[in-house]
């Protein structure tokens, strides 16, 4: 043992790395790291390819509103049965994570198919995150699909996907509550009438807060604001592309929102709620009226998930002085620009968006095809919503179609919330939002 102890240090001195070696290797590694990092952008940089039309593909979809996870899995398994040489793996995320996950996964080309919102084609298309599929788009689709659907994946006359979820926000109300408070449903045709009805419902004690909305600091807030902005005759941008929401209808819409909170007509949890929170409160009978997407009708009328099943009715968005345009909340399936299996991805997308598949799942989301609305089977699936959709889907309002929409939306979300929680008057909040938006839009 002693012998070993005396020889070990000698060996270490003799063969161990000297300071110079350590510094050289460390410095070299550092320099190599820096140089390797010098290519700016990220990822491998590999661009996508058509592939053989076979193989394994991965799709990123949403687990919220529209088609349910179960619907999408059923559609996918029938697709795989018909196309055994294509294997589809599905990843579900909340809407709030969809954009950022698409961005983060883009360099690696993780996904072959991504679900994109109507507000993203400008950003994803110009940044080449999703593929331009204009050449694959049959001209006939423009005629066969509803106008709001055709506009969904479009930017600067290019198509960046195929519309899949055609949706807008409808006004849902509880018929039993209205009957109890002796409120005529016809009153809900205008926003003035909605406020009157809310006052009557509150006064009669049917619901403490008759209205509930998704006004959390998120895109859901902008969807409701867009609906009201349209109803009050406002626009996001003027003809020259400058912010215009700080004038007229834009301000009135925000004042309407804030007033409904201070009057105790809107549930104060609205400023912390997303669409699913709205559905839960409405389905628990704790609200008499709510704005939400198509999917709520089926779920709020399902006795397994709702205490108000059978009492839920739906109307198109109420009218204001500027009309009743509904927010275009549609979504499209896009091929990832970095996908190595773009042909297989396209096959999957065209299957999911095809009329037979969309007609079959019309209860969750209404089809994008005009012919579906005359199909008795589709109408039978969701007669109440189809009746309203026929009127509403012809009159939709888009959020600004600009490359940095997300940045503008974040600004608007923060400033609208500033007004809703009483930190700023509506006009000042929108003026501040307009200043920041003007900077983001550039000269």
């Amino acid at each position, binding site marked *: 043992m002693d012998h070993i102890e005396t020889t070990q240090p000698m060996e270490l001195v*003799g*063969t161990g790395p000297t300071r110079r070696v350590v510094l050289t290797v460390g410095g070299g590694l550092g320099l190599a790291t*820096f140089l390797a990092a*010098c290519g700016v952008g990220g990822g491998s940089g590999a661009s996508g390819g058509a592939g053989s039309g076979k193989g394994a593909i991965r799709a990123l979809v949403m687990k919220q509103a529209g088609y349910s996870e179960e619907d999408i899995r059923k559609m996918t398994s029938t697709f795989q049965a018909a196309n055994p040489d294509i294997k589809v793996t599905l990843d579900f995320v909340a809407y709030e994570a969809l954009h950022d996950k698409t*961005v983060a996964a883009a360099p690696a080309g993780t996904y072959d198919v991504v679900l994109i919102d109507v507000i993203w084609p400008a950003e994803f298309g110009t*940044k080449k995150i999703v593929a331009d599929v204009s050449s694959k788009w049959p001209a006939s689709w423009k005629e066969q699909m509803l106008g709001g659907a055709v506009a969904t994946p479009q930017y600067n006359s290019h198509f960046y996907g195929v519309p899949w979820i055609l949706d807008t926000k409808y006004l849902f109300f509880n018929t039993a509550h209205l009957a109890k408070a002796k409120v005529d449903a016809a009153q809900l045709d205008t926003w003035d009438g909605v406020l009157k009805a809310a006052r009557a419902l509150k006064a009669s004690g049917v619901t403490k807060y008759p209205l509930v909305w998704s006004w959390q*600091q*998120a895109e859901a807030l902008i969807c409701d604001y867009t609906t009201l902005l349209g109803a009050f005759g406002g626009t996001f941008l003027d003809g020259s592309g400058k912010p215009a929401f700080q004038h007229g209808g834009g301000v009135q819409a925000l004042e309407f929102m804030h007033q409904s909170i201070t009057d105790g007509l809107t549930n104060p949890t609205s400023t*912390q709620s997303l669409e699913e929170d709205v559905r839960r409160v409405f389905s628990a009978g704790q609200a008499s009226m709510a704005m939400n997407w198509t999917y709520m009708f089926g779920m709020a009328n399902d006795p397994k998930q709702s205490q108000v099943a059978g009492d839920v009715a739906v109307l198109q968005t109420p009218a204001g002085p500027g009309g009743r345009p509904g927010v275009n909340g549609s979504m499209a399936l896009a091929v990832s620009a970095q996908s190595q299996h773009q042909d297989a991805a396209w096959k999957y997308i065209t299957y999911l968006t095809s009329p037979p598949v969309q007609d079959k799942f019309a209860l969750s989301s209404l089809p994008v095809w005009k012919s579906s609305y005359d199909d008795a089977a589709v109408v039978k699936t969701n007669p109440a919503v189809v009746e309203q959709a026929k009127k509403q889907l012809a009159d939709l309002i888009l959020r600004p179609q600009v490359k940095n929409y997300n940045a503008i939306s974040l600004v608007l979300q923060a400033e609208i919330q*500033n007004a809703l929680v009483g930190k700023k008057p509506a006009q000042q909040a929108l003026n501040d939002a307009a200043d920041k938006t003007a900077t983001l839009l550039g000269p």
Partner: protein
Amino acid sequence: MSVPQVAAAPVKKLGARGSGARGEARFAFLLLLPAALVVFGVVLYPVARTFVVSLFAVDSPLPGSYPFVGLGNYTRVFRDPDFYGVLGNTMYFTLVSTGAELILGTAVALLLNAPLRARWFWRSLVVLPWALPTIVNGALWRWIYNGQYGALNGLLEALHISSTPVQWLGSPFLALNMVIAADVWKNTSIVVFFILAGLQTIPSDLYEAARIDGASAWSAFWRLTLPLLAPSIAVVLVLRTIEAFKVFDIIYVMTGGGPASGTQTVAFYTYLQAFSNQLFGYGSALAYLIVVAVFALAMVYLRLLRQGQMAGVE
């Protein structure tokens, strides 16, 4: 048996310093290579790359040629009015949550160090909040705080404290404090364990001597326990301050930064700029500033700790 063989080998190597020695050095490097590659891949490369990206106006995740802006992204941070708001929120979050965790954690650790019945059970119980993933913790507290059907309002009503539901996450400042409370609930556990470990290193005869000298429990705590706990407190303070300064996930789940940006922190703001707005250059500059701030905090703490130890020695 093998001793003479082991002893003989180095002599041979030393005598023939050259190929044999280099061979062993090469072998040593070969063994270190996997670890070096991992460090290179997951630490050095991202750190260097983030710095490079922060010098360019990168606005896409994909490769491309982006304008070089030098320190432009860094100066932009200081011209960004929203940054000061989120910095204020972050400082408040860090100070209050770390302070509350330290006070509460020390109190619980002292309790768990006392000769309690079923002490092992209470000690295991304290681990639970810490073992919970932050995402689950955030979702849990989001439900508890819900103004419509949350358990906290239900409890207050059952105890006849308040019949009007409170919107715990409804106003910016209150929401920030409620998120801090949720964070404290989860992270006090780790403070408890650090302090408890420190308490167990204090010899009991010191307390005995203090008692004989007529020291009260209170003065024994201030003059004996606390100074001897200083190293444990310093370590846990560094860890918790750094973690609190980087807070992201609990905010993402509980409030999404709202209401009215009242719960937006620097890390959350960085994420929004980088991924939602695709301003990767600006986001990288923000991330680097977080690193600098955390590094500065760590240096201050470690210096304080060293001074404390020196003072102790004297």
